[in-house]
């Protein structure tokens, strides 16, 4: 008798439903080999009698085993123990072997390119971020706005609840697009209406999407040298041929670009070149736009960090000067509102709106409603521009005090870039310093100085560094600088 072979408890009074307990006993018996494969189980009726349970309980136990693959019901011949047990699959080692050699995987060409750039040390996966200080972010205001828009989800009857029903808006929440478009028009002289503005949850996706749309393998793309490495690596991973164009105090050397011949795409940061801080001059802007129109190239204007200029010249955007529909404009609020919002924005040339609209929902259709609604109010109620103004004052003073400290300590042994924008200061040490000493002194003192090598596609410039001056506060900064300097002179 099958049931006799199983170690059945005197009564089924353990945890959970009785049917589950019976199924578990049978399962254990099957796994332990007490019941061999292909043996026909007693009928539900018999089993109910033998076990002293109701028929439906017995039936449920069998059903559960059958769903788990331990038994197989066959028409006409009753229920059998399965020939091959799922247990053979379930026998996983209880502790996973984290050191077992990894399986060889055939990755896509895109992933392989990224892997090989990483192996060569050109990119790293984890970046610590010395951004704006958290104390400058108006968390209280943000909290109120989040509360306002979370409420819609709680109060079912409120009229805004309808906002929470599903409506795919691949270009973003319309009120946010309105608000941001009018902010850009005002503050950056961008020619934009809400239809041409796209909200991205992921900022990196903006360049990726444009690169996918426009670039075939081997297409020429001009970038600034030195310049933003993440963008450069994205273009390389796409298979583009990157053409580095030098930068001086007037920004990208457009002459060099024109001499190089036609390209498909140009990536520039005209309002604040990183890491040099240079602003693209008016003359070069005009040259660049003419060149793009003539050779049919598109320009990506990354307006990152444009909020923070300290010399009173918030230059209008390149996009605002463009009359031939060639500029794709990128903007974000990371340096103003990190880490509470990470949204990115893109303003499209009118001719590209249709094409991008069709693509966006394939890669990113849903962006958090609450975050978007809170940000629209943050802009519309004037908090954004007030915050930028306040921060600009604070950062200008941080920057100035850093420069005077550097001058008083190092005198002429260190050169500081005169262009003043952004959250970092570019400096160059005179010959005679040694980069290893500088870097170990930085590490020991916690002075936020980083060498600029990762900005360069070609050979980096020795003894060139950026100092991030916004997140420590003036006092702490001065203290660490003194420590750093004393370590250097020792």
């Amino acid at each position, binding site marked *: 008798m099958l049931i006799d072979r199983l170690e059945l408890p005197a009564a089924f009074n353990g945890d959970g439903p009785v049917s589950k307990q019976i199924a578990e006993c049978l399962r254990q018996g099957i796994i332990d080999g007490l019941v061999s494969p292909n043996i026909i189980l007693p009928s539900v009726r018999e089993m109910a009698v033998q076990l002293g349970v109701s028929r439906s309980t017995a039936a449920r136990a069998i059903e559960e085993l059958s769903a*788990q693959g*331990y038994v*197989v019901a066959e028409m006409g011949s009753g229920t059998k123990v*399965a020939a091959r047990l799922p247990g*053979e*699959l*379930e026998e*996983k080692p209880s502790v996973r072997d*984290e050191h077992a050699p990894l*399986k060889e995987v055939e*990755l*896509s060409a895109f992933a392989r390119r*990224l*892997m090989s750039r*990483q192996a060569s040390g050109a*990119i790293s996966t984890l970046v610590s*971020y010395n*951004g704006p200080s958290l104390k400058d972010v108006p*968390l209280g205001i943000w909290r109120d706005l989040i509360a306002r828009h*979370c409420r819609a*989800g*709680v109060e*079912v009857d409120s009229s805004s609840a309808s906002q*929470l029903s*599903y409506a795919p808006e691949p270009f973003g929440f319309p009120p946010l697009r309105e608000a941001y478009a*009018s902010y850009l028009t005002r503050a950056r002289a961008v*020619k934009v*209406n809400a239809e041409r503005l796209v909200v991205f*949850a*992921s900022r*990196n*996706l903006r360049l990726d999407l444009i690169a996918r*749309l*426009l670039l075939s393998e081997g297409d020429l793309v001009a970038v600034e040298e030195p310049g933003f490495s*993440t963008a450069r690596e*994205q273009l390389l991973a796409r298979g583009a041929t990157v053409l580095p164009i030098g930068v001086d105090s007037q920004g990208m050397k457009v002459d060099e670009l024109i001499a190089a011949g036609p390209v498909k795409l140009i990536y520039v940061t005209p309002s604040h070149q990183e890491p040099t801080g240079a602003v693209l001059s008016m003359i070069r802007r005009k040259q660049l736009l003419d060149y793009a129109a003539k050779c049919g190239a598109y320009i990506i204007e990354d307006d990152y960090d444009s909020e923070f200029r300290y010399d*009173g*010249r*918030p*230059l*209008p955007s390149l996009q605002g000067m463009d009359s031939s*529909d060639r500029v794709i404009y990128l903007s974000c609020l990371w340096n103003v509102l*990190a*880490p*509470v*919002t*990470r949204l990115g924005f893109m303003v499209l*040339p009118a001719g590209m*709106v249709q*094409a991008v609209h069709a*693509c966006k*929902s*394939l890669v*990113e259709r*849903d962006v*958090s*409603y609450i*975050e978007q609604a809170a940000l629209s109010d943050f802009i519309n109620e004037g908090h954004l521009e007030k915050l*930028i*103004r306040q921060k600009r004052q604070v950062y200008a003073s941080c920057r100035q005090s850093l420069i005077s400290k550097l001058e008083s300590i190092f005198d002429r042994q260190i050169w500081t870039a005169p262009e003043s924008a952004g959250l970092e200061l570019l400096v160059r040490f005179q010959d005679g310093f040694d980069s290893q000493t500088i870097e170990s002194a930085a590490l020991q003192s916690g002075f936020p100085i980083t060498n600029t090598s990762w900005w360069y596609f070609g050979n980096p410039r020795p003894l060139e560094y950026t100092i991030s001056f916004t997140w420590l506060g003036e006092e702490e900064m001065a203290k660490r600088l003194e420590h750093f300097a004393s370590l250097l002179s020792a």
Partner: protein
Amino acid sequence: MSIAINLEYKPYVALYRRLSDALRKAILEGRLGLGEPMPSVRDLAESLKLSRATVLKAYEDLQIQGLVVSQSGSGTYVSSHLPGDLGDLLKERLQEESQRSPASFISASELSQTGRLLKEVGCKQQEEHVHLPEIGYGGTPVELSPAREWKSLMLKHCDIHEDDQVPFMIEPAGLPKLRLALSNYSKRRRSIESSPEEVFVFGSKQMRMELIGRLLLNPGDVVAYEEPGYPESRHTLEALAAQVVPVPVDNEGIQVSYIRRFSRPPKLIYVTPSHQDPLTMVMSMPRRQELIEYAAAVGSFILEDDYDSEFRYGKPILPSLRALDHHDCVIYMSSFWKILYQSLRLSYVIFPRCLSQPALLVKGYLERHLPLIDQLALTDLVNDGHLEKHLKRSQRILAHRRQSLILAITRHLREMLEPLGEGGGTHIILNFKSGVSTGSVSKAAGLVGWNLVSTDSYYATESVEGQFIVPFADINIDTIDDTVKKFAQLLREIR
């Protein structure tokens, strides 16, 4: 308020005049809207590094021209009516701007080959959406989502602490503590053994599919895809130039025997084992074994979309494919779509160990930044047991709604339907008997306001006539019987 102003250098023109010209231009271009406040004198002076007197003089100049008005106590505003024909000029300009159609749309020759494909698939999807306005079907109604808990957690985490180093590290795969929480959660609910390094948090659902495709697929690579199957993920794969081959499903799930006949084994096999989307059946245990063994033998990856697996009615839940896999070949993905869609768009993927390093690299290039507060709140929601408590409560309500729907259907529609299938989740499938057309069902449903969604767009090949998805998460148990009854009457008349 900040405003971008370019003070053009003009010889012999006073500075204040150059400023007032620039501001006049900004008003006439509509950058400073009618009736809106002008930047304060102090702000403008500060941002342009001009003296306040200069700015003040420029404002006076504008006032004389009738372009701005000064209201004592509250500052200077742009006039709400511009003098003379200036107002009409502006109106015309603005109208022109908004109606301006582009000189030319970007031409196909300007797009790359991948770009053309991306656009083509995107347009196809948009067209399908036109026929599928109910695409939002099955989303959780607010009363079945833990919206209250979510709100308090979000507010709690708006107070980010200064000493919290979290914001200053960029974590493309998500906050480490959230990855740990999800790893534990999927172990509790789905028996998955994973290390937190294999768990990746995503900001949008599509991005999971996009990343997996970008990581593994080259143009022309074969993907085996359930037929019928979720259309949007299929589109994302098609846009990557993958060769997506529909593989029919039967009562036990995807037919592995069919995949075996491919001339080239697939790189990826997309399945929804816990709740076939849309047909709702559960993949049987033997089929799960067969699939894993097949994939391990030919070196394919299985993409397990654990969509809508939270709710089951009667039938026991089976371990996920990822829990059964010891060949390191299952990619598991899940989201909170059916729980908290309205507020929470985060989703996650658990990669096999062999893919987690390259996936991290690709993630850093596609989706580097994730919302911090949402991640902190989700960590608590998962760890504090709110989520599971909530699921338990929803399960009861959903079972009740499902029961009343099935009852109403059995009562009024039985003779027009094939037998109902089983299955969990938040919808059931109706197969109307032959002779009942998709069109007439849709028409009758529309007239009585019953949310029936045709499965047409789930089929890559020929669709099945008269097959419908019936979501029940948001039905009203008091009126559903009446609705179905009216529907049945109407359908008989139309037919």
